[in-house]
């Protein structure tokens, strides 16, 4: 594009906090671009780069602002001329202020009357003149969690700023930010290339820095890190264990990544591998390696930030730093495994869970009671459920969980396995914490589900009992997370296990078990879970098969898929109005309604339901009695009544049928009311003069509506 130039801005700093660095740089690019465009400078796409020591953006920008017409409005024509049509002092003053003769001013008509205006064509300024203030504003607009001051200055940024490069193609744009003047000199790697790196042209930025051992493009750096560790792992014949957090952090703390293959004493492998991996990944940013059987090996990879003259020295350093950490972990593991898990229950009785709710032992006992009752419904053994519940918090008393709090549950499981406890119980001790965050896996086995549900029931009831209900963004007891986890398990778990859990009844039981003088209201708890269920259900995609299967589940929950249907918020509200006690049943109703809405008769039926609701509300009619056929005067009434009788029976029969099909079959039957209802409304005046007649017609409508309200509140659906 002619007239376009490449802008490069690099802010050179001391080592920046890695968190959000990418977002921050993108935000910087966006702020600059938006401000340029707002100033009338056409821009192309912007790129953003960063390393621990720099934030940089680069993009195509027009050479200068577009020319623009600047219009200034003066006095109204009324105020600008006197009775003789001569310019008043107001008009003369305005003309002077814009440097024009009064006669040269134009007049424009507006809603408020005619005004004098002055128009002037203003040529666009070169973009370089706009940049200093735009860059300063853009940097000031960045969302920084903890900016700092340094030296004697008043400037604030994430870390002290040392250099500033601002180039348009090959020209330096004079600017000053954070007390630093712009130039073309960047800096290379802190140790490999401490001297300045001149950037001859904005387009050469990445190349010149690469020569100075800096990979400024985070994508290139991640790619290099991947190549480095993949190659090192391959050399060792092992596979790397990485996750996004680790990769992201590695990429944000190096400029010139090199992999160093290291190893530790294989004797440490007797410690649970989660502990060793957590030490390596979280504390040291090392990459663990697994063997062909998926077991942790005694080798690992560290990512250094230089081409060392002697990488062996770094290897020895990495190996030395991990040794005392592993030795500590092994010491704790040996101590912990020597104590039977159940023996920690005594200690749990001394740890306060919450002042109003007693100790952790008290909580475990409440969870045990709930789990025992829940187990047969979920398909687990009540005895095991009780045992698992009583063991479920014992690992909190171990040294290892003290050191690695993120491994609570996992440590319990590993100790239980080591002590040869029931494998299903061992698994549940870890799995009941799931889902720990949105998108986490769910507990799978019936015992794990039982414990996961029982634990959250008690947490919620306890939280409400202790007055810790979340307000605004404050949720000290993480009750929202508990409710969301509960809702997810109860709609997304295997229906074989969760399909019959009566949430309202169990919230009642959990509430009654709380040790507080006044018990929380189970219905308020149910509402709270429903709020979380809403976001869960609205994000679900359901696959509803075309043909109704003879048996089994009629809906399949999918993450996403081309043929997937979504549940709308109106459908959610229509079902929620009925407060279904079983959340999976909630899902079935919602799925059936979504399927029904594609029926051509659906809209008419929803309309009819809304109409009936309105009429009954206005009439204040609460009759439950059937209409008296003797009082029918119109044929449409008789036909509707006959159809209601027939379809009501069919719908009732369907609702007693297979849980997975009942709502769809009932709705299929109810759809046949569309015609008779339509005819009724066309031919019959409900609110007629004759009171007896009117009441009979209202009763007929109430009878027609009733079977719909067994499934959902149809009047809340869009139609």
């Amino acid at each position: 594009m002619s007239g376009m130039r490449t802008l490069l801005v690099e802010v050179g700093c001391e080592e920046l906090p890695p968190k959000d660095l990418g977002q921050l740089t993108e935000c910087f690019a966006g702020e600059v671009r938006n401000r340029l465009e707002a100033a009338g400078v056409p821009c192309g796409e912007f790129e953003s780069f960063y390393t621990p020591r720099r934030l940089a953006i680069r993009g195509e920008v027009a050479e200068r602002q577009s020319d623009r017409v600047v219009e200034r409005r003066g006095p109204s024509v009324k105020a600008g001329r006197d009775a003789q049509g001569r310019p008043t002092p107001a008009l003369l003053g305005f003309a002077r202020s814009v440097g024009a003769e009064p006669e040269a001013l134009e007049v424009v008509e507006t809603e408020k009357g005619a005004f004098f205006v002055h128009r002037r064509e203003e040529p666009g300024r070169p973009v370089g003149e706009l940049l200093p203030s735009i860059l300063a504003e853009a940097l000031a607009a960045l969302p920084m969690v903890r900016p700092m001051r340094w030296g004697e200055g008043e400037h604030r940024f994430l870390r002290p700023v040392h250099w500033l490069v601002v180039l348009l193609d090959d020209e330096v744009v004079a600017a000053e930010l954070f007390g630093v003047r712009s130039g073309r000199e960047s800096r290379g790697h802190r140790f490999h290339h401490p001297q300045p790196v001149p950037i001859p042209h904005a387009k050469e930025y990445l190349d010149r820095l690469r020569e100075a051992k800096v990979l400024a493009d985070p994508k290139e750096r991640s790619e290099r890190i991947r190549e480095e560790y993949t190659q090192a792992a391959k050399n060792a014949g092992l596979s790397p264990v990485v996750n996004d957090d680790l990769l992201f952090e590695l990429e944000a703390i190096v400029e010139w990544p090199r992999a160093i293959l290291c190893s530790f004493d294989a004797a440490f492998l007797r410690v649970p591998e989660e502990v060793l991996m957590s030490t390596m990944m979280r504390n040291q940013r090392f990459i663990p390696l697994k063997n062909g059987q998926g077991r942790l090996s005694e080798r690992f990879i560290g990512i250094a930030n230089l081409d060392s003259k002697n990488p062996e020295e770094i290897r020895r350093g990495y190996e030395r730093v991990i040794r005392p950490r592993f030795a500590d972990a092994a010491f704790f593991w040996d101590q912990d495994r020597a104590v039977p898990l159940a023996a920690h229950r005594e200690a749990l009785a001394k740890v306060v869970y919450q002042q109003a709710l007693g100790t952790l032992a008290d909580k475990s006992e409440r969870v045990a009671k709930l789990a025992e009752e829940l187990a047969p419904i979920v398909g687990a053994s009540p005895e095991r459920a009780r045992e698992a519940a009583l063991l479920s918090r014992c690992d909190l008393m171990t040294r290892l969980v003290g050191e690695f709090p993120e491994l609570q549950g996992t440590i319990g499981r590993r100790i239980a396995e080591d002590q040869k406890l029931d494998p299903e119980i061992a698994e549940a001790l870890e799995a009941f914490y799931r889902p720990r965050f949105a998108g986490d896996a769910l507990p799978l086995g019936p015992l794990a589900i039982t414990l996961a549900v029982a634990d959250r029931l008690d947490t919620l009831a306890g939280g409400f009992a202790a007055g810790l209900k979340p307000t605004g963004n404050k949720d000290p007891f993480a009750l929202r997370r508990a409710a969301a986890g509960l809702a997810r398990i109860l709609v997304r778990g295997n229906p074989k296990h969760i399909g019959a859990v009566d949430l309202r009844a169990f919230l009642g039981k959990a509430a009654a078990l709380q040790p507080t003088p006044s018990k929380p209201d189970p219905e308020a708890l149910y509402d709270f879970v429903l709020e979380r269920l809403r976001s869960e259900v609205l994000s679900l995609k359901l696959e509803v098969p075309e043909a109704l299967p003879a048996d089994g589940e009629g809906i399949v929950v999918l993450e996403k898929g081309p043929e997937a249907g979504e549940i709308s918020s109106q459908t959610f509200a229509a079902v929620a109005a009925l407060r279904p006690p079983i959340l999976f049943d909630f899902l079935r109703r919602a799925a059936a309604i979504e399927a029904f809405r594609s029926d051509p008769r659906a809209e008419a039926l929803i309309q009819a339901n809304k109409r009936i609701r309105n009429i009954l509300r206005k009439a204040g009619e609460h009759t439950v009695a059937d209409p008296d056929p003797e009082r029918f005067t119109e044929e449409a009434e008789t036909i509707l009544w006959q159809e209601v009788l027939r379809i009501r029976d069919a719908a009732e029969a369907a609702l007693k049928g297979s849980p997975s099909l009942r709502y769809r079959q009932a709705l299929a039957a109810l759809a046949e009311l569309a015609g008779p209802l339509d005819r009724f409304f066309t031919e019959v005046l409900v609110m007629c003069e004759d009171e007896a007649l009117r009441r009979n017609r209202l009763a007929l409508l109430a009878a027609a509506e009733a079977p719909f309200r067994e499934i959902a509140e149809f009047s809340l659906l869009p139609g």
Partner: protein
Amino acid sequence: MPAPSFQELILALSRYWAEQGCVLIQPLDLEVGAGTFHPATFLRAIGPEPWHAAYVQPSRRPTDGRYGENPNRLQRYYQFQVVMKPHPADILERYFGSLEALGIDPLVHDLRLIEDNWESPTLGAWGLGWEVWLDGMEITQFTYFQQAGGLECKPVMGEITYGLERLAMYLQEVESVFDILWAETPSGPVFYRDVYHQNEVEQSAYNFEHADLEALFAAFAHHEKEAIRLAELGLPLPAYEQVCKASHSFNLLDARRAISVTERQGYILRVRRIAQKVAECYYAQRERLGFPGLRGGRA
């Protein structure tokens, strides 16, 4: 270059930072948890007067004691502390220069600055900075003070805290702190164990088993009261020593587990309150004196 002994390490750092313009001062003669408690850091971070100093500070962390049985943990260890206010723009480069002076080649070793934001709840102080990693091992804390005693630090003090034992272990390639060579002497080598092992054993016993709880609670209350009284008398320096003593009494009580989790926060707030009061008193005092440090001479 052969690895420096522990005392050579202290000498080398002292010489290096003296050459950078720091006043070499001596440890505070009170029990404190870190070099930051020395008035040469905490009080000098307050107010506009320039200040550049370096010193070794024995640091006591009663809960970290392991009766001399853990190769990496001590209830009393040494920090080498450097403070520069205002800090020179190239303070980081100067710091890396100090490592080179110790024989650490930055083109061989992996030297990294890992974000670490420091906060002392008891001193009402915080700053932003890094842990310095040498081949993955933390050897230094680097902090740009932003607040001390609840007061904004203007200009900003740069604080460098070397963990001397860590650094010595790394340089001498020993796996236990007690194997650190303290000095070669004509009568043979002297090791860290010879100097301090028995001290770890006995002090751990005192910290965990024998410290007199009743006397410590009383001491805490007394020092707290004294700090307030002295600050009100316009004597911030002795008042500040009372803050240090209160803080150490709290640390001992903590090691004896005499303070419950719920009470703990309350004690921390009490220390913070007196630290804040003394900090304000100190600032007022310096202001009254006309900030003598600004006139060239150091008061």
